[in-house]
């Protein structure tokens, strides 16, 4: 029962991959009719696709000059990077900031950065972890579950899981191996079913991967990017 949501997510992920990758789609669309002609390399690849679900890590970072930069890393369950996409910084002017008010960050994070980043992916993730709570709004535009994750030490009030329709639900998860710090996960209030998928994904990936650690990698990568390419500064 626990593995059902993950299977669904994998199927969804593979469906998305096939629809987004043109040549790959064409090659595998007719697999049913020419199974015999498949090479061993293709067979291995197809098997790998079936057994490998991807994780997405979406991060919003504030640049030194009060701009916002979005970055998305797709990894395997073991944390091996598969894809990395990032946006150029969005720099609201002094006039735009007060005009957007409190919705500025969520608008930039969800509408300007998050959605285009998710659309641009070749490897569709089974689940997306985000580092800011306002990024949970992406769930309304995404087919895959989205969860806000942070180390348990940074979230002091861990309330029990609330019922659907209540406040945004959050729950504490601990690594089964005990190697990693416990995390607190929060979901979009209107997508309470994401909790089951998150639990399944975490039970699989938490043995090898700290779900907060990839955000540090992304942060290092964006630092390098800013130094190498002035258009990201």
């Amino acid at each position, binding site marked *: 029962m626990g593995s059902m949501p993950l299977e669904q997510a994998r199927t969804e992920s593979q469906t998305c991959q096939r629809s987004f*990758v*043109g*040549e*790959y789609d064409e090659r595998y669309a007719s697999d049913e009719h020419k199974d015999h002609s498949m090479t061993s390399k293709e067979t291995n*690849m197809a098997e*790998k696709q079936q057994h490998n679900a991807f994780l997405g890590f979406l991060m919003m970072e504030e640049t030194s000059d009060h701009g916002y930069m*979005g970055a*998305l*890393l797709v*990894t395997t369950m*073991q*944390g*091996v*990077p*598969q*894809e*990395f*996409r*990032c*946006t*150029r*910084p*969005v720099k*609201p*002017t002094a*006039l*735009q900031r007060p*005009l*957007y008010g409190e919705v500025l960050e969520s*608008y*930039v994070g969800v*509408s*300007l*950065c998050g959605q*285009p*980043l998710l659309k*641009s992916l*070749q*490897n569709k993730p089974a689940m997306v972890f985000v580092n800011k709570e306002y990024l949970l709004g992406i769930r309304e535009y995404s087919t895959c579950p989205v969860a806000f994750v942070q180390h348990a030490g940074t979230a002091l009030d861990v309330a029990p899981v609330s019922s659907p329709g209540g406040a945004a639900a959050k729950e504490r998860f601990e690594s089964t191996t005990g*190697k990693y710090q416990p995390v607190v996960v929060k979901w979009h209030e209107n997508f309470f079913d994401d909790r089951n998928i998150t639990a399944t994904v975490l039970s699989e990936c938490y043995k*090898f*991967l700290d779900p907060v*650690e*990839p955000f540090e*990698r*992304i942060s*290092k*990568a964006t630092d*390098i*990017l800013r130094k*190498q*390419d002035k258009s990201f500064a």
Partner: protein
Amino acid sequence: MLTPRATLAKARHYLARRLLPLECPEVARLSVPDLLLPFVSVNEVLFPVLGSATIVEDLLLSTAHVTDVAFPVLASAAVTGDLSLRPPKQSQYFQSLDNTRLAECLDFLEVLELRPDVIPFPVLLETPKIQGKSYSPGGLVQTESTESKTPCIHGLQEEWCGMCKAKNADRTLGGSKPFDVFDLLFPVLQPPLEEDFTNPVALPPNKSLYPFQGKGIQFLIEHDRALLADEMGLGKSIQAIIALRVLFRGGKVRNWAHPVLAIF
């Protein structure tokens, strides 16, 4: 029709509001934007011709015969001098004023002041460009970035532009691909290696280290200079390779400024 005294009061009131700073009630300093007053005419002296140059002498309306001042030479000047609005004493200044035109001018200025300046500025934030790379193996089609959809410097899409294509072809003629900064990021995006190497990322599937090999790796990591002198066939190479990986992932080896020398 305004009387000269009323006209002067009106002009003084206007200038008091428009001109900055007021050094004294009678003298005001003009700045260039304040002089951009079209159609202002004081007895044939047209202010718009003052443009962006400099008047080095004071314009004293109290002492000068305005009709005699040769203002056309100021065609492209800015005013830094003082304008005194003291009532004339020596000359009958106001008698020579064209009151009708001045009144029209002041009425125009009043209307001009009532109409606020509209400064347009963009409110909507633009969607940023996205760049990135897929590192996934297996020959999936890779889109380097969505930026290729943007027009090139010649105003066309890059894949349609012959000049850009030729330029890219020249760049790759030497056999080396153009530098991609996202290749540089690939090592940084790798997951950290743990010391117990239980993560399948550390070793190939179904492969594990012997305990003495783990100790050897630990020894190599902890020392700046180390000699690994195991017997032949005990796995010195794999120990050295994994030690280098750990050092690299841990950020202890960043560039070639501090090279790692491994002798096998």
